[in-house]
């Protein structure tokens, strides 16, 4: 039975916003992307609602929307937009001493090329396999492995120094 669009949105809007926020590194952009995709899905719900996995289909629409999004965010913007997030969504409990390392890692992920970032998000946030990522991104499995390998190499290199600033200097020296 085809779910109603309203039921679908009620169940999926939060997971989609979370996914888009991870993908875009920007909650405002995530909101724009999800809103745009859901508006399009609403208009075509007769067809989309009838596919086997509407949620997967719409998630792929979000991925495609992100990959084709014209607006580019510079890394410096990411730091600020992260900061303004507290006006949208209060901080959640976190007593881990890894906090700063995670923030630094987010900054580095935000600087990855788009397809590399998408592959990393699908692997480590969505826990997709190589073949699932390949389907999502519309590329070969070998390309997926290449994206992830390159991204991990970059993130490992930049993760090695303790302070975030030192990591940036390492990259500058290499470029």
């Amino acid at each position, binding site marked *: 039975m085809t779910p109603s669009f309203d039921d679908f949105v009620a169940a999926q809007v939060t997971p989609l916003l979370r996914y888009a926020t991870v993908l875009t590194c920007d909650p405002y952009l995530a909101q724009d992307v999800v809103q745009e995709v859901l508006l399009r899905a609403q208009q075509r719900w007769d067809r989309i609602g009838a596919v086997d996995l509407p949620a997967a289909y719409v998630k792929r629409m979000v991925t495609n929307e992100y990959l084709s999004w014209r607006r580019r965010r510079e890394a410096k913007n990411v730091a600020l937009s992260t900061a303004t997030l507290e006006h*949208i969504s209060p901080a959640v409990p976190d007593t881990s001493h890894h906090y700063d390392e995670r923030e630094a*890692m987010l900054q580095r992920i935000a600087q990855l090329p788009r397809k590399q970032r998408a592959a990393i998000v699908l692997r480590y*946030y969505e826990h997709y396999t190589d073949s699932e990522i390949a389907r999502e991104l519309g590329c070969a499995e070998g390309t997926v492995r290449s994206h992830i390998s390159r991204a991990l190499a970059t993130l490992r290199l930049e993760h090695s120094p303790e302070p975030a600033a030192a990591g940036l200097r390492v990259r500058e020296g290499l470029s």
Partner: protein
Amino acid sequence: MNDTEQLIKEALNRQADRAPHPGPTLSALRRPARRRSRSSLFLTVGTAVAAAAVLFAAGVLVGKGPSPDNGAAALLPTTTPSASTHVKFSPGWLPDGFVEVYRSAGPDGIVRVWTTEPSADPPFATAKPMVSLSVDGNPEGFETWEQVALANGATGYVQVTQGQTGPGATIVWRAPDVLRVTVRGVPDVRATAVQIAGAVQPDDKSVVRSAVEYQGLSLPRVWGASPSRWTSEIRVDPFTAQVSTDPPDLTGGKPVDVRGKQGTYVPGKYVAVLDRGVWLTVTGQLTEGQLVKIANDIKIDPKPGYDWIGH
């Protein structure tokens, strides 16, 4: 899974926790098509940014600068926020030691921030005590919070959350603008937030003024430690321009002619130049020539009069 992979996973999960509330998205889906917009402020800013993007594409990427009398530029006077934006409200009371360090007007509404420990960096994302006052923020969903009567007679909605730096309290009310006060880093965040909210007053004098402007567009975002140490920023996709009293990191840079002076191009990062005693930095995923052209077209105000910083 190795340490890096574990850290990636943790970082992505943290980012997911920052997803926006679904309320605005659900509201947009319910509205008739012609009325779909996030807010009047979003519409104004979005239109202005879109106009700037059109101008940018026409002027920078193609290399033909838009003139003020062409068709696209003619749209700007009605869609561009003014260089000065009234902040509209001020707190009538703050805890001892708090001074103002940040003002902005943009897609996230009008925001003002006070802290006890001013610095040259933006005041968010630190463990410092902080009070923020936002106008027309993201008001959806607060009706389920605890109701509280404010000293000004309004009904507020308050929520206390446990953040990574300790508890924080947020209180939202209508005046009739939707106002939001957030407090953290003080002994009783809830009581302090309620007291601040009850004393917020209309303010038709205070403004936030940008020290940087591109093609008539300036979405002011200003922060600093004192009236003599500040940064003013605008973001116009696909670039960010900052004017600051502090120099940027020029490591790895090479000389470049910009604004009739010798500036620095740091490959892959930005163009920077010292102009009339302040540093202009233009950042974006653009070529050196594009960044230089933008820097040349930007207007700066080296003395914007940020006397409110630190007070």
